[in-house]
């Protein structure tokens, strides 16, 4: 019965997002804006999968996922900006020319090519996560300490990205792109294309995470979550496992960021401030951690609510969000999915008097 339910959920999910939404747009019922808004939510959901892996399955609360997300976005943004600059016949992006910089900084150079950009967007977060993870896990920093130190790290990076000297656009971030691989970003079909790619990547990422969590590796991770010392007593190299999942989570965040950028058209350090990094964790908490579906649904739901509430109740959306957080943590610590499960159980318990036989 479990698999049946899952299959149905997948069918429903794919039907709505891969068929219904694009169809709605093509028939003129939905505007292209709706499509690209949902495309952006998918990117968040991809990052949320990573958070679920590291937090939900391994029990490590990493608050620097927002930073990895931004690294991915910034990489693609640098590439797009250089392409736009080249198309305009200039060498330096506008903001650099204003800052009186003569030559393109060395770390911008590789982003001239799309291929290199893709590689670097994945490589930089991975290497960064590896170093940070290595340092932190080796000294057996865990739990709250881990959360606070990664948060502090994000804060430090946020401060650095805010500076103009770092040549990453400062507070303004990077914006004003025109084309991606020659396709104009403003055209509706490109937006639809990006939406479909994001959706495909989300499905792919989900599949990968699903495989990971159901593999031996995934089971070790869950064991680490439940009792790290016992796992290490049984001769598993806990640090290696944690490091691996930390890097995977960083990669997922970066992929989300890479897809996020062309659909939003701007990346600023605001994406990785304290608020943003806590919120990313909240998506997973709300959806249900330790449950991949929950992570995806949480990310989509919270962001959808955020969009709606800021239009409908500008004054009170923070209350709604705040209460949602508190109530979820207090009463539904398995999140939205946990709630659905418990309702379903109660439903089946009352509706079908003989639940044993349906198995």
């Amino acid at each position, binding site marked *: 019965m479990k698999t049946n339910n899952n299959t149905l959920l997948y069918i429903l999910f794919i039907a709505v997002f891969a068929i219904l939404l694009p169809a709605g747009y093509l028939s003129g019922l939905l505007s292209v804006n709706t499509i690209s808004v949902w495309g952006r939510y998918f990117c968040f959901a991809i990052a949320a999968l990573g958070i679920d892996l590291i937090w939900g399955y391994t029990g490590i609360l990493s608050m620097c996922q927002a930073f990895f997300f931004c690294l991915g976005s910034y990489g693609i943004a640098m590439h797009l900006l250089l392409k736009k600059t080249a198309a305009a016949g200039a060498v330096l992006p506008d903001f650099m020319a204003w800052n009186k910089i003569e030559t393109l900084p060395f770390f911008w150079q590789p982003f001239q090519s799309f291929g290199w950009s893709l590689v670097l967007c994945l490589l930089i977060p991975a290497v960064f996560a590896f170093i940070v993870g290595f340092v932190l896990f080796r000294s057996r920093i865990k739990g709250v300490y881990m959360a606070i*130190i990664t948060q502090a790290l994000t804060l430090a990076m946020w401060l650095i990205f805010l500076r103009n000297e770092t040549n990453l656009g400062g507070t303004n971030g990077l914006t004003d792109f025109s084309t991606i691989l020659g396709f104009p970003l403003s055209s509706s079909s490109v937006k639809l294309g990006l939406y479909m790619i994001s959706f495909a990547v989300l499905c792919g990422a989900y599949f990968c995470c699903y495989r990971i969590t159901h593999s031996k590796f995934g089971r070790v991770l869950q064991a680490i979550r439940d009792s790290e010392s016992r796992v290490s007593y049984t001769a598993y190299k806990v640090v290696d496992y944690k490091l691996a999942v930390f890097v995977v989570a960083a990669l997922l965040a970066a992929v989300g960021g890479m897809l996020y950028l062309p659909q939003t058209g701007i990346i600023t350090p605001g994406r990785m401030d304290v608020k943003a990094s806590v919120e990313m964790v909240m998506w997973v908490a709300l959806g249900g951690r330790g449950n991949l579906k929950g992570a995806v649904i949480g990310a989509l739901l919270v962001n959808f609510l955020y969009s709606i509430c800021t239009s409908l109740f500008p004054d009170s959306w923070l*209350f709604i969000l705040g209460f949602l957080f508190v109530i979820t*943590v207090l009463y539904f610590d398995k999140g939205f999915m946990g709630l659905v499960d418990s309702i379903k159980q109660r439903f089946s318990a009352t509706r079908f008097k003989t639940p044993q036989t349906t198995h």
Partner: protein
Amino acid sequence: MNTSLRMLMCCFLLLPLFSAGQDSASIYTAQLLQPPADSVRTQAIGRLAALRIPATFPLLMAINDKKLYLLDQKAVTVDSKPTGEGTYRLYSLYPDNTLLTNSSGQPLLLPLSALKTVDIPRGDRLQLAGIAPLLNLFSNDAQKRTLAYSQLKNTGDSATLSILQAALAKETNADALRTGKDVLYAAQLYKATTTANANAYIDSIGDNWSDNAPVLLRNYAKAGFLNQETAHYAAAKAISLEKRYDSLQRIQNFFSGLSLGSILILIALGLSIVYGLAGIINMAHGEFMMIGAYTTYCTQVFFTHTLGIPQTDIFFLCALPLSFIVAGAMGWILERLVIRHLYAKPLESLLATWGVSLILIQTARLLFGDLTAVKTPQLLSGGWQVSPHLTLPYNRIFIIVLTLIMVLFTYLMLFRTRLGLQIRAVTQNRQMSACLGIETRRVASITFFIGSGLAGLAGCAITLIGNVVPDMGQTYIVDSFLVVVTGGVGKLAGTIFSGLGIGFFTKISESFFQAVYGKVFILLFIMLFMQYKPKGLFPDKGRIAED
């Protein structure tokens, strides 16, 4: 009143010098007040400015400040501030400058409407720009006098110098006196003709040690005015002054670090206790600080608007305990409603309290809306002038003292009372303490009350240096967590050491890098530090250390 007396005195002193001009001054003054034509007035002001008779300075100053009025055809001016009911005290201007009194000898108080304003066009007033510094030497605003002295720099003419000397003889403000003397000595130094004489002036300048002294001496040395010897002497003096200045700067930096550190300790103190006891990461801790700050603000509003006692410092004294109680009470409520269900689930508590902090921030925004700031109590504004170049602001001294008291209070509470014993027991082992008959829930809620109250107190203290905005807590929250983590959870000594350490370290790095890099540097340093001390400065030892 003091000033007018002073002016009178100096007018009297200088009178013989200018007696020749005195008669013409009266004529010009009369022309100025009742000009037959605009051109006559322009000319009269020009002449008066050129004559530079001190007796006319009050009048000219009134013109310059646009505060010249006529009362019964007599030129008068008013105080800069009304006495309260919109009436002003009046001063006559020429030939004497005195406070006007009514028949019973009390100061005469009149509203501006009872006076006839004498309008002097801007063009005429501009003629006074040249002697404005001279006029301001006799202003009753010490800052204006200081500025006036410094504007007289590089004037060699003896008439100005004698006016300067006269003004200095009556100077009461230390800052103004120092600036004035500096100008005087400098002029005399440049006039000195013998080495001994020049060296004596150089010494005087050194002893006076105004802000400008090193530059002045260096310039003198560079010019090689008299001979090589004095030039060398001046240069050496300048260097020694700068060295002394640098050592004072180090004290100032040390003080800055101490003050930042004590703010961090004040905030982290409550956080550390609560975290240690209940295993709660209270992201809303910063918001209790905000509540404390708003309590202070409300107290001030209550005192000034409802009770109608402005300009008193009582409100702040009342606000201190109030902010503790209000923030503590809010903390207690929060504990009852939310935290109680989350003991020993630190990560869940992080998320729930984050939600709470969102709610509290938005509530504050809806209630208070604007940027608000608390008026600094008179007692705590300004600074303690340890030496001419070392000012330690009172508000920061106050915060350091408050922190000291609070640390002491917390120490006594934790280590000298029954409650403290219980808190420490619950911190070490919750279940075991419960077995031994400690009401862990009660202990927890009291601890939460105290922890939040301490945050509220910190918020109250912070109104002295910063402003009150709904999201003020967020500025400090990550920093204070770092203090707790570096110091070791629930460790009083650890919190103090790490708070001070981070404070000093930040200030030291700030004097080398810009503020931001200082902060980044700190964060990296803490990460490295945790490599060696993953459980903070003072980790628990023994079996309780491993969970």
